[in-house]
């Protein structure tokens, strides 16, 4: 028999509530968040918007044809062949 699924209802804790439950001081929490938030990826946004965006990025990369990849990795001189100076600017 599978254990019954537990239903979790709010209020949901803020990070300050969690710190209080765990017995962590405000000063320590602020210092920790300062250290870690500075390196936080810009993608961490509410509502999973970032997840959708990262998904579309993946598909864009996949849609790159091998011809495009070859062109992108070619030397600058070969890439410039047949293009106007304006296009290269």
């Amino acid at each position, binding site marked *: 028999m599978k*254990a019954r699924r537990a239903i979790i209802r*709010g209020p949901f*804790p803020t990070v300050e*509530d969690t710190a209080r*439950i765990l017995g*962590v001081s405000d000063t320590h929490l602020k210092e920790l*968040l300062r250290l870690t938030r500075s390196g936080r990826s810009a993608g*961490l946004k509410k509502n999973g918007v970032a997840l959708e965006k990262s998904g579309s990025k993946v598909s864009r990369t996949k849609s790159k044809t091998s011809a495009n990849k070859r062109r992108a990795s070619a030397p600058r001189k070969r890439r410039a062949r047949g293009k106007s100076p304006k296009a290269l600017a």
Partner: protein
Amino acid sequence: MARVPKPSPEVFLNIPYDEKFGRLFLAFISGISAFGLVPRATLEITTSVRRLDRILDLIRQCEYSIHDLSRVEMDRGFPRTPRFNMPFELGLAVALEKTAKSKRRGWFVCESRRYRLTKSLSDLNGTDPFIHDGRIEGVFRELGNMFRAPGRQPSVQQMRTIYREVRGNLPVVLRKAGSTTPYTARVFRDLCLLASDAAEELVL
């Protein structure tokens, strides 16, 4: 009279503290936090004086408990012994739930392999364990089977994003605590705070 908001449910996390379990340890912290729950563990108990009493107190104050028995096996050190802490704490949690005054609401058993529990702990026959296959995705999937948060149900992708955030910051937390292992009181608390912060930002 104004209604006093209910405190956030705490989850007693009964897991093995070994290197091989490191990624799943972070996955459990991330997933539990994503559901708006606060993980607790015996790691927080730093003193050895009356340790058992403090473990009992900790289990008693948590509404739920998760017991991972996937690494109940013989260790390599001499003399070779199985690890009894996890099944022992599971027994304590089950017994506490049966007491009349308990506010505890449930306990969940996790395993990495199907049917292993039937062999190792037949007293639990009739209770299906949550099989996570020893993978972080499995942990997130099974947490979704254990808990339901109407209006705030986190997706596996959101739990994974929180996990990445926590894992990415692990070196900073370890350095700050002067530790080489995540299984210390201070590192555990910091990881819970990071997961809670990320969950607050990511999950509605």
